[in-house]
C-alpha cells in the first residue's frame, strides 16, 4: 500500500516539530527516516500511524492508497507500530501478546480460536521463537522482545509497518543481526515499511530509500547510494559519516581551498563567494612526494591502524585538521610514521556555496 504525506505541519506548544513536510512511499517499499534527535522523524512516523494529529491547517493530509486517513483513529488505520522500548504487555505471555490484536477484534471479525493459534504459531516461526510461546516478556532478551513486538504488529496484517528506532535500545552486535534479519523479512512479506533511526549505517544498509530529516524538514530523499554519494546539502554530507570541511572560495566555477583549486561543474555559474568544500576521509590519498596532481602538505599527528582502514589524523599547514582513511595495504606499503610531512590529494570533493540558491 502506498502512503502519501502532503504538506503536514506539527506544532507542540511553541516548538515546530514538522514544517510543511511532504513524502511519498511506494507500495512494498522499505523507507528509513534518518536524522538527529529532534529532527521530527518520530513525529512524522507517529502522524502516519495516527498516534499524533497533524496541525489543523487545511493543507496537511495523510493518504493511504489515495484515501485520506487524517480523521481515522489509530485503531482503524491497521498499522503495525513497533516501539523503541518494545511496549510489550508485561502481564501477558509471548503468545498472548501476539494474539492480542486478533482477540480484540469485534466478534464478527474475530478469527476462531484455532485460526488465532495457527496465526500466532506461524508468526513465532517467522521470528524464530517457536519454543518461547509461554514465556513472559521479562524472560526474554532485548532482541527477542523486539522480535515479539514485530510479530505482534504483523499479526493484524498491517497495511503498513512503522518502526520507531526499533533497535535503538539494543547493543551493537544484536542490532547488526536484527537489521539483516529485518531486511530479509521484508523481502519475504513485502509490507510497506517505514523505519525511524538516527543511525546512518542502519539507514543506509536496510533501506530501499532513505529520507534524511533535519530541523523539522526533509533534506533529501533518495536511494542509499544517492544520499551517500550525491548529498543534496551540507547537512546530509555531514550527517552521513565522517567528513573533512575546508573553508574556501568559489570563483568562476572553480573552488579554491587551502593551496588547491578545483573545477566545480555544477556551480559553474554561481556568483563568486565563500564555499565549503567537503572531502570524505576515504576520498583522500597520501603520498610522500608531490606527484603532479593537486595536493596539500600536512603533518601526520596520529595513526590508528586498527581496522580495515588505517585512520590518520593530519595537521594542514594552515592548522586545519584532516582525517584520512587509507586502505590497510596502502598504509603498510607507505610505512608512514607520526610527525612525517606528507602530501594529501583529494579524489572527490563536494562543494557547497552557502549563499548560492538555485
Amino acid at each position, binding site marked *: 500500500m502506498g502512503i502519501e504525506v502532503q504538506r503536514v505541519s506539527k506544532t*507542540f506548544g511553541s516548538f515546530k516539530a514538522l514544517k510543511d513536510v511532504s513524502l511519498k512511499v511506494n507500495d512494498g517499499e522499505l523507507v528509513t527516516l534518518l536524522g538527529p534527535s*529532534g529532527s521530527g522523524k518520530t513525529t512524522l512516523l507517529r502522524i502516519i500511524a495516527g*498516534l*499524533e*494529529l497533524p496541525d489543523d491547517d487545511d493543507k496537511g493530509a495523510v493518504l493511504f492508497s489515495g484515501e485520506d486517513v*487524517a480523521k481515522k*483513529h489509530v485503531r482503524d488505520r491497521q498499522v503495525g507500530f513497533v516501539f523503541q522500548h518494545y511496549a510489550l504487555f508485561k502481564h501477558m505471555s509471548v503468545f498472548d501478546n501476539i494474539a492480542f490484536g486478533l482477540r480484540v477484534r469485534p466478534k464478527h471479525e474475530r478469527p476462531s480460536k484455532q485460526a488465532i493459534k495457527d496465526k500466532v504459531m506461524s508468526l513465532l516461526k517467522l521470528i524464530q521463537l517457536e519454543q518461547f510461546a509461554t514465556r513472559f516478556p521479562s524472560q526474554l532478551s532485548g532482541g527477542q522482545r523486539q522480535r515479539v513486538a514485530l510479530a505482534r504488529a504483523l499479526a493484524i496484517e498491517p497495511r503498513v509497518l512503522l518502526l520507531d528506532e526499533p533497535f535503538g535500545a539494543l547493543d551493537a552486535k544484536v542490532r547488526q543481526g536484527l537489521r539483516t534479519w529485518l531486511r530479509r523479512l521484508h523481502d519475504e512479506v513485502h509490507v510497506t515499511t517505514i523505519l525511524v533511526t538516527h543511525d546512518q549505517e542502519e539507514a543506509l544498509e536496510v533501506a530501499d530509500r532513505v529520507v534524511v530529516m533535519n530541523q523539522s524538514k526533509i533534506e533529501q530523499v533518495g536511494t542509499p547510494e544517492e544520499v551517500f554519494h550525491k548529498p543534496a546539502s551540507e547537512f546530509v554530507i555531514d550527517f552521513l559519516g565522517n567528513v573533512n570541511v575546508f573553508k574556501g572560495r568559489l570563483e568562476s566555477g572553480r573552488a579554491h581551498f587551502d593551496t588547491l583549486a578545483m573545477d566545480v561543474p555544477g556551480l559553474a555559474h554561481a556568483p563568486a563567494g565563500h564555499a565549503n568544500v567537503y572531502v570524505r576521509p576515504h576520498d583522500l590519498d597520501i603520498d610522500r612526494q608531490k606527484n603532479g596532481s593537486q595536493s596539500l602538505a600536512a603533518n601526520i599527528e596520529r595513526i590508528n591502524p586498527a581496522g580495515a582502514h588505517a585512520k590518520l589524523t593530519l595537521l594542514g599547514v594552515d592548522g586545519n585538521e584532516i582525517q584520512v582513511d587509507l586502505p590497510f595495504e596502502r598504509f603498510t606499503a607507505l610505512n608512514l610514521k607520526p610527525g612525517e610531512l606528507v602530501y594529501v590529494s583529494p579524489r572527490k570533493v563536494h562543494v557547497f556555496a552557502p549563499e548560492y540558491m538555485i
Partner: protein
Amino acid sequence: MSPLQETQSLNNQNNLETSVLKPTAKYIDWLSSLVPGLLITLAIGFMALFLVLPLLVIFIEAFKLGLGEYFKSFQDPSAWHAVKLTLIATGISLPLNLVFGIAAAWAIAKFEFVGKSVLITLIDLPFAVSPIISGLIFVLMFGLQGWFGAWLAERDLQIIFAVPGIVLATIFVTFPFVARELIPLMQEQGSDEEQAAISLGATGWQSFFYITLPNIKWAVLYGVILCNARAMGEFGAVSVVSGHIRGKTNTVPLHIEILYNEYNVVAAFAMASLLALMGLVTLALKTFLEWKVQQDRNTTLEPTLAEVH
C-alpha cells in the same frame, strides 16, 4: 512502600508536574473529548459528596446561630480545659516522638546491624493497631486490675483515667510518624556526606547539625505536622484511657463527643471547627512541603531541551 503506611510518604512523591501526560492519542473522536470530562465530573462529584460536604457542614453548623453563639461555646471552662489538655498531650508526645524518629532513622540509615528490617516493621506497628486496642493495652497495664494497678494504687498514683494515660496513649498512636518519613530519606542519602564532614575534622554533633539536619529538615517538618494532626485529633485511644471526666480528663475530641451527645450541636461544631481548621492547615502545609521538595529536586535536575523533545 510499606503497607503500614498511614500517609503518603514525602519521599515517594513522583514528579507530578514533569510527567504531564496528554491523552495518549489526540484523534478526532467524539468520545475522546467526552470521556475525560465525564470521568473528572464523576471524581469531583464523589469527592464533593464525601469530603467537601462534611468539611462545609462543620463550619455551617458551628455558625448556625451566629457569631455570638459560636464564641459563647468557648467560654465554658470545661472547653478551655479540653483545649489545654489537648495541647499538653500534643506538647509532650511531639518532642518525644521527634527525638525518637530522628534517632531511629539515624540508627537505621547510618549503621548496619542484624534485624534492621524487623526494627523498621516494629516501628510501624502502632499504625496497624486499632485505636481502641491502643488504649486498651494501657488500661491492661496501668488500670486497677492491670499489671501495675495494685502497685500504683498503693502509692496513690493514677495513670488511667488521668492525664498520664492520655499522654501515653497519644505517644503510642503518633509513634511512627516522624520515623517513617525519615527512614527512607536517610537511607537513600547514605552517610557519604557525614563521612566527608568527619574527615574534614567535624565532630559528630557538628556533622549532624551542619550536614544531616539541613538534608532532612523538610521531611522532619512533614513528619511533625502529621504527628501533630494525629495527636490533637486522636479519639479512640484517648477515649479508652480518659474516663471522660468533664473538666479533668477530656481532650477536645472527647469534649466534642460529650457536647454532641448532649445535643449541644453548636458548641460541638464550634469545638470541631477548631480541629477542622487545624486539619486544613495541616493539609496546606503538607501540600506546601511536597511542592517545596519538588522545587528542590527540579532545580537540581533541570531537564535539558533535548530531553524534553
